[in-house]
């Protein structure tokens, strides 16, 4: 297979935030201890007229605009999300129309809890690498839902990232990918139910840690690399504590984790989580540097990637908003406003 990789990328984060303390106060919980146990201080909140589709479109437009890519070159669009607004009717067709990529392309929506977006990257790598298409667009976008008062409510956030995958004009090469998948009942949402259910403590050890560490270690074995060969590590960030611990267990330092560690002021953007960390690293990485990214999706599985940054990355700088710019100057909302934005209360 020819070398494949990232031609361009774009991210989107809504401008609203809610502080963990504000949610805790509503439910009579101790905000201080929740902040410390989760290592999350605030999370993004979608506007009333934003959803997975609008976030996916904004991220996709940012990726295309960053490099003035002709949208008609895109031969596949896959959007990974666990909050597609329609159960039947794809998000990806709306994205395709909104970026002007129709009608000559294939499209579908992916769902694998928080790793639908990285599964989309792999599908695009295959289509691009085999020469079936010129460019592929892989998107991870979510407006994550946590039931009012549930532990997930402190972290369930909104955001999305789009990657344009191609064979030439690469800004970063994806040198290898490695996946691990098992059937794991750690987290689910049945059809027609508004909020997910989770297996409590079960979500940590056998689910997140086993899969993400297994995939990251498998990738390093396959590529004969060690943590010392990487400049950055990006892991799925359901909260701050999990990736910090997993990075340590894998032998990575805080310095390698830091630049892509976006969760403390963003929350868990689900399908956008690991990809948002990757986008934040691409915003500042230098040619020649190496990134290990590993996503995690409940159910469960992990996709790990070895990404090597190339000279072309310099052409992409400041052509679209960076993740740190998107995180800057948020508008803070009260719990009442937040509940209205998320449709948790009838007005």
């Amino acid at each position, binding site marked *: 297979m020819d070398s494949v990789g990232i031609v361009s990328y774009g991210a989107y984060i809504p401008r609203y935030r809610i502080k963990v303390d504000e949610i805790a106060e509503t439910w009579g919980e101790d905000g201080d201890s929740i902040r410390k146990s989760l290592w999350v201080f605030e999370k993004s909140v979608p*506007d009333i007229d934003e*959803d997975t*589709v*609008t976030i996916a*479109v904004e991220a996709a*437009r940012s990726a295309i605009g960053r490099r003035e890519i002709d949208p008609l070159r895109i031969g596949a669009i896959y959007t990974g999300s666990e909050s597609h607004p329609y159960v039947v009717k794809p998000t990806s067709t709306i994205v395709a*129309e909104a970026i002007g990529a129709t009608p000559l392309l294939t499209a579908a929506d992916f769902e694998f809890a928080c790793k639908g977006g990285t599964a989309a990257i792999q599908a695009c790598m295959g289509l691009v690498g085999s020469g079936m298409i010129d460019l592929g667009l892989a998107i991870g976008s979510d407006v994550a839902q946590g039931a009012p008062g549930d532990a997930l409510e402190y972290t369930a956030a909104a955001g999305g990232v789009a990657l344009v995958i191609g064979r030439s004009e690469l800004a970063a090469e994806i040198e290898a990918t490695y996946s691990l998948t098992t059937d794991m009942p750690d987290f689910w949402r049945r059809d027609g139910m508004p909020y997910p259910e989770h297996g409590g403590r079960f979500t940590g050890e056998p689910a997140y840690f086993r899969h993400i560490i297994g995939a990251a270690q498998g990738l390093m074995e396959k590529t004969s690399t060690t943590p010392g060969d990487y400049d950055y590590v990006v892991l799925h960030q359901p909260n701050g504590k999990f990736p910090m611990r997993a990075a340590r267990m894998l032998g990575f330092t805080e310095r390698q984790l830091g630049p892509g560690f976006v969760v403390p002021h963003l929350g868990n953007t689900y399908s956008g989580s690991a990809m948002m960390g990757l986008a934040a690293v691409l915003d500042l990485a230098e040619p020649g540097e190496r990134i290990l990214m590993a996503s995690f999706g409940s159910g469960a599985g992990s996709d790990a990637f070895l990404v090597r940054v190339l000279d072309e990355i310099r052409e992409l700088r400041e052509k679209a908003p960076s993740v740190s710019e998107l995180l800057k100057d948020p508008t803070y909302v009260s719990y009442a406003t937040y509940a209205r934005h998320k449709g948790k209360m009838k007005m």
Partner: protein
Amino acid sequence: MTVPRFWRKLKHRYNLLGTHCTTCETYYYPPRKICPKCRRRGEIEPHRFKGEGKLLTYTIIQNPPEKITAHAPYVLGIVELDEGPRLTSQIICSPEEAEIGMRVRSVFRKIGEESAEGMIYYGTKFVKL
């Protein structure tokens, strides 16, 4: 709005696709097939607007119509695109932030929905630049 009616105009709602008369350099949104100034001399080509412009005037809506995805009160404005055409759109900002002449840029948002079971209408709104 009916589903077929929305679908017919969907491309122009998503993307600010209009037309441009190369004879008199006038831009049209919504698109026109014939330039009213040049008539038969007019050469019309499709044009994708950049989506940047300024707020010409606005009003504050206290009671939004049903099926519209917006918090009351919200800002409804007339935007003049940099290429010239004017259109009415919701402006995403608080009523206190709205200012005549302010620069705006188009974004992709939910406009409304038929019902909890019905179709979701997406389209273009504007945010402060």
